[in-house]
């Protein structure tokens, strides 16, 4: 259902949604950047159109809205275990086409990956997705080459015009108990970018030999293993399990899972103390090839969606796309 609404009418629709859903969207966090007087755009619960940031790429992706950084799975006392309460309300999540495409990778890992993760599934099934159009690509974006610049299967689509909101409501549940005026119906065309400045070339015949290349060596000295590339990635799904006993009473505690990073020290620690991927170049190799090689072998599509946030966030200016573009030359070369 194509619609063109005034900002105030869309505000009314959001009010209606807010009665039933928690609305998650990219929002401005003033002064919350790593440097003083710098802002961040990341996901927050919002209730009004004004809070939603349309003109910037969010620093962190939508994934924290369905895959919280910290998620308590259960609480334990001496002889009892109690599962943490599931999220109370359904969610509406605003996200861009690249991120919407990332969702299928999250689903592949958490739902279609031998065992269903019911913590993820519970949240996922109760989420609706509103895709935000992209007028043009941002720095470091390469969605077109990753074929994630367009998408379908979303619950709604939205973009802003100078003084109106263009909307396509696909899932009728999002139009529930709201009567649109006849003048608001319109033929609309979603805005998807068709070209990006940053380009990547993933060789069609990419094979595992590239793992033995010396192209990874420079990353051992460049990378500081901070893990930002993982935390800003919409498709990174690794977590660590933490069992903690509360300090006031060690007989009570919780098991929680928190995001983990294959770049950060400790990721490959094993019982006995051995850590098998100490070299940061090899950690880069592991991450990059997971995004553009081995995940596809199993799932038929690349994990990387070309949002470019890893390149945006890297304090050492390591560009993911520049790294990917070295693969072709590195194949078969030691």
């Amino acid at each position, binding site marked *: 259902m194509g619609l063109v609404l005034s900002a105030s009418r869309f505000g009314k629709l959001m009010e209606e949604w807010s009665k039933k859903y928690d609305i998650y969207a990219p929002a401005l*966090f003033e*002064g*919350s950047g*790593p*440097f*003083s*007087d710098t802002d*961040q755009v*990341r996901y927050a619960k919002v209730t009004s159109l004004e809070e939603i940031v349309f003109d910037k790429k969010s620093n*962190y992706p939508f994934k924290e809205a369905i895959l*919280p*950084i*910290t998620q308590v799975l259960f609480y334990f006392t001496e002889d009892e275990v109690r599962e943490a309460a599931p999220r109370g309300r359904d969610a509406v999540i605003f996200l861009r086409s690249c991120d919407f495409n990332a969702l299928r990778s999250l689903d592949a890992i958490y739902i279609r990956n031998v065992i269903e993760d019911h913590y993820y599934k519970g949240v996922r099934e109760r989420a609706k997705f509103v895709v935000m159009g992209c007028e043009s690509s941002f720095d470091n974006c390469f969605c077109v080459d990753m074929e994630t610049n367009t998408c379908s299967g979303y619950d709604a689509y939205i973009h802003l015009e100078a003084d109106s909101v263009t909307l396509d409501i696909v899932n009728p549940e999002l139009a529930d108990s709201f009567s649109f005026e006849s003048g608001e119906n319109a033929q609309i065309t979603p805005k998807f970018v068709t070209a990006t400045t940053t380009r990547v070339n993933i060789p069609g015949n990419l094979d595992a030999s590239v793992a033995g290349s010396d192209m990874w060596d420079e990353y051992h000295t460049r990378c500081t293993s*901070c*893990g*930002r590339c993982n*935390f800003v990635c919409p498709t990174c799904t690794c977590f*660590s399990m*933490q069992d*903690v*006993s*509360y*300090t006031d009473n060690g007989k009570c505690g919780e098991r929680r899972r*928190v*995001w*983990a*990073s294959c770049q*950060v*020290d*400790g990721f490959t620690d094993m019982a006995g103390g051995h850590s098998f991927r100490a070299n940061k170049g090899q950690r880069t190799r592991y991450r990059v090839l997971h995004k553009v090689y081995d995940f596809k072998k199993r799932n038929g599509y690349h994990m990387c969606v070309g949002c470019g946030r890893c390149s945006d966030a890297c304090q050492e200016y390591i560009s993911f796309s520049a790294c990917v573009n070295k693969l072709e030359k590195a194949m078969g070369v030691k």
Partner: protein
Amino acid sequence: MDINVKKVKKNAFRVTKHRGLTASRVRVPGGDITSEQLRIVAEIADKYGNGKAHITTRQGFEIPGIKYEDMPKVNEMLQPLIDQLGINQDTPGTGYTSAGTRNITACIGNRVCPFANVETSRIAKRIDKAVFPHDLHFKIAITGCPNDCVKARMHDFGLIAATMPQYERDRCISCYACEKACRLKATQALKIVNERIEREHTKCIGCGECVLNCPTRAWTRSKQRYFRLAIMGRTGKKNPRLAEDFLLWADEDSCVQIIKNTYKYVTNYINLGAPGGKEHIGYIVDRTGFHEFKKWALEDVKLGPDTIVKEHVNWGGIRYGLHY
């Protein structure tokens, strides 16, 4: 040649070792200057000087090789620079009003530096506006973080900017980058408890290393900016020493007020019999005792709830000769 050197000095020109030649002293509060302003310095050096300029330790320029009779013309050329820098001036077109109070210096601050907690040059300009021109010998500097690149601890008043780190537990992924940075680069104020971080406030110096190193924005900066106010540091021929902390977690307004109050304190206690009628604040505080200074400094100052006032302050330093 008949020149009133007292007037020359008050007009920010120097009596140099070269008979007949002076140097124009251009004060740049906080060291923040535009290319247009730099061009004025260059033009004066070309037209009335010897084509050279010295970058001073206090973030100004000294343009040497100027004839005393050219001072009025140099002052005319300086006017747009003085206007643009917002320097307090009695009569336009008459150049800088020089004084005992030295240019207020600042590190580059958060306009450029990732470590800085504040825009230091803005604060330098604010204090400049509040205290200039003044005959009393005050040295004031603002630095963006405890790295203290501007060497605030060599000043009568050193403002060392800080942030009060804010921790959002559920955004923490236990990478311990903050703990490592604090342990190796700062004060070991962070402790790992149950795979999360506890900050020991009495150890924390507000440098912001935890915030800088956090990859998930679990650590962010406080909205409120804080300052460690270090006082009575100095160089010199008697007892050079580092400034000691007077206030911790102070706000900007209070620091400015304390500096202004200190002008009254010095005016009241200065030994006019000292050479040239000049006595540095630190030596006055040595004479009256810290507690007398403190009484004057804190008059009508409304400190914020987070501020810690040092009960006693003791200075060390080098005592040359030990015979004064």
